[in-house]
């Protein structure tokens, strides 16, 4: 195969960049080794004091700190507060979607419809907002909640695998996008195009956007729901042992369906945030975003088998994925597929870690 001169030059350039990044990786290794040793002692102390379930979350936190520290050491511009805020601005919709996904994964289920519901919501927002204005928000949320309810109902009452039921939901939502319009609809209404983009100044020459507050509010609400309400504890109980939850007299049907309603609603909200971000609606938006959300939740320490995990871990998972993305963008010479490679590697590590932890935790072990 012959390469055009331009292409070869490009590849050479990348090779050099790879050599450079290899050195960085070595440096990072050394640093990481030090921090691992330090962490070894730290985790020993933590394990004595804290429950072992916190470990995956702590590992994610440590990884995030290491990654961010490394980034800041290499690129001085990276280590600014604004970069962290940008992580929230750029990943707000993913965070909201991942929070909804956390509810579902905690019950031991899965929701594959998230990406499609995001696309549908963005599409709905784009077509509705010119006609109904503010009323777009409740309508879109209601559509998301209804889809979630339907899937949850089917999953619970017909005992269908969540995988299949939400796969159906995914096709349904994706198809509905094209019923609304085959073409891309662009958004000009201030509700999406202006208001969410008003910069709010913070001290130290930083700014946030209103969308960040929406994401943080959802996070707070989710935390409160999961840890301080019966519904939330019911979600954990079902994930721990659904049969037991039923025999303990918990409202299993309501709780399980509720988890999918939460996920559907979060997806709808994420879709609207996505619309403010892309300022358009099209049927091919957010393809595969449910998988990003699942990755973030799992990296955030939630067990795929359910019953164990924290929504704050999900936040860390989203931030970790976001900072990998940012770091690779800062690097400039690395292609964007490195994001996928690193994400894949991380997922592997976390799944193995969870396996190790949960097998240690089982009483008969």
């Amino acid at each position, binding site marked *: 195969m012959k390469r055009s001169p331009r292409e070869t030059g490009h590849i050479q350039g990348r090779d050099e960049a790879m050599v450079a990044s290899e050195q960085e990786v070595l440096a990072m290794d050394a640093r990481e080794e030090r921090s691992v040793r330090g962490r070894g002692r730290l985790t020993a102390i933590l394990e004595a004091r804290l*429950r072992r*379930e916190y470990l995956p979350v702590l590992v994610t936190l440590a990884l995030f700190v290491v990654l961010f520290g490394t980034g800041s050491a290499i690129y001085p511009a990276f280590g600014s507060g604004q970069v962290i805020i940008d992580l929230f601005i750029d990943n707000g919709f993913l965070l909201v979607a991942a929070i909804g996904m956390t509810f579902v994964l905690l019950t031991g289920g899965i929701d594959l419809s998230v990406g499609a519901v995001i696309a549908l919501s963005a599409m709905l927002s784009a077509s509705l907002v010119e006609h109904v204005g503010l009323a777009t928000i409740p309508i879109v949320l209601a559509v998301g909640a209804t889809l979630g309810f339907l899937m949850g109902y089917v999953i619970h009452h017909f005992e269908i695998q969540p995988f299949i039921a939400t796969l159906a939901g995914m096709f349904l939502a994706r198809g509905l996008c094209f019923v609304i319009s085959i073409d891309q609809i662009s958004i000009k209404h201030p509700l999406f195009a202006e208001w969410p983009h008003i910069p709010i100044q913070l001290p130290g020459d930083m700014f946030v956007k209103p969308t960040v507050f929406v994401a943080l509010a959802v996070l707070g609400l989710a935390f*409160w729901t999961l*840890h*301080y*309400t*019966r519904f939330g*504890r*019911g979600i*954990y*109980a079902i*994930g*721990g*042992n659904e*049969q*037991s*939850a*039923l*025999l*303990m*007299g*918990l*409202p299993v049907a309501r709780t399980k369906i509720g988890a999918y309603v939460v996920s559907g609603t979060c997806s709808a909200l994420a879709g609207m945030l996505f619309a403010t971000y892309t300022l358009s609606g099209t049927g091919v938006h957010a393809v595969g975003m449910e998988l990003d959300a699942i990755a973030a939740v799992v990296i955030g320490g939630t067990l795929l088998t359910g*019953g*164990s995990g924290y929504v704050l871990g999900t936040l860390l998972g989203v931030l970790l994925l976001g900072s990998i993305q940012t770091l690779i963008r800062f690097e400039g010479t690395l292609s964007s597929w490195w994001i996928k490679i690193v994400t894949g590697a991380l997922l592997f590590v976390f799944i193995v870690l969870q396996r190790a932890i949960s097998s240690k*935790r*089982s*009483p008969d072990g």
Partner: protein
Amino acid sequence: MLRMTGITKDFPGVRALNGVDFRLLPGEVHALMGENGAGKSTLIKVLTGVHSADSGEVRLDGAPLTIGSPKQAQAAGISTVYQEVNLCPNLTVAENVFIGREPYRLGRIRWKETRRRAAELLARFQLDIDPAAPLASYSLAVQQLVAIVRAVDISAKVLVLDEPTSSLDRDEVERLFTVMRRLRDDGVAVLFVSHFLDQVFDISDRMTVLRNGRLVGEFETRALSRVELVGHMTGRVLRTLEELHAPREDVREAIASREPVLAARGLGRKGGIAPFDLDVHPGEVVGFAGLLGSGRTEAARLMFGADGADSGTVRVGGSASALRTPGAAIGRGVAFCPEDRKTEGLIEELTVGENIVLALQAARGWLRPLSPARRAELVGKYITALSISPADPDIPARNLSGGNQQKVLLARWLITQPRLLILDEPTRGVDVGAKAEIQKLVVSLAGDGMGVVFISAELEEVLRISHKIEVLRDRAVIAEIANEADVTPERLLEIIANGVAS
């Protein structure tokens, strides 16, 4: 207090309950007795709302009661603790006690209050359990006690305990009984199901006996002897058990002179069992006696190749063979019935027939399927031979009682016509009648020339059928004794406790 009349319940292919009457008085411990498959579990599930009865009436305190779900049963005052602990291991002890009814204020759960109240409750039962610790960090016994605390705190009219003691050791059972007696004295009606006759006679005031889904009768425990009870449960006199005598000496010698079907020399595995020697001859039953965790299962797994050995050799049928995998062992005619029939053996979704032919089909390979006619013939033969009931090869294995499930597993291995059969606790959780049948079967298999390794925690059982006994303690074989007339359970216990005397 509670009265059930004319309860009938059908499952596909099985009439589980047939017009059963049952009553519970306040302030008593009432034992529900019966063989596996007699309908005990079904009756309890009807009482607790898991199943609904096809006909019949339940009255609580004189008022008729419809129980449609566990929640309704709880609301009416009937709480249940099942054999498998039905709590959530991922939550804390306090949460497990209070989940679904946590103290609420200002729209949020008051965690401190939850833990404080849990601590109070646990203290009332004199249980030293940290309410803030995850449930999974405690043993099964403690989890069981937590389940009881929860059940009693929710509603303390009727407490149903479905085989709560099957996985507890002696001290833990005593602890449980203390709690039960306390509840009884508080006026709670406690319904207790157990296979351990000693425990039933120890704790219960009255008992109801079921057989084949029908009521046999209601008895005062004091006025009933063990033999009478077993008679009521099985519907026959204990003849089967008496037919089995310890094998005679000349038979033992004849057997020992044959070429061993399996000979282990210095076989061992670090952390599992210390190196041991063992010969199993055709037609010989070798009993493994020892406490739980003494290395019995570990030794069996080495002989089957389920674990790799660190040291020693195994000769099967006279030729040296490295049993590295169960497949290799099966190929050489070794079969192994594991201890935990639910997780390691039976596939509950498949039918009885499918479960039975599984190992044979695996041994033949998937490319040589059994013909349907041959399959039906084989399955039918073993269902009859082992008197599996109901004798229907097409019902799912899950619908069978524990003893019959065990027989299905046995059939699965017998059908492969092994030369050596290793049985790990085949009679655990099985009622007296099925126990006797399994023992009889083992003896007759040995009579046909099969070598059998029989592992059991019940010394009487080991003594009754074994030709020789390997005594295990602390993960080592400490003695091999021929089963002579003067070997008694007491002597075996002494060896287990003190090593070989003299």
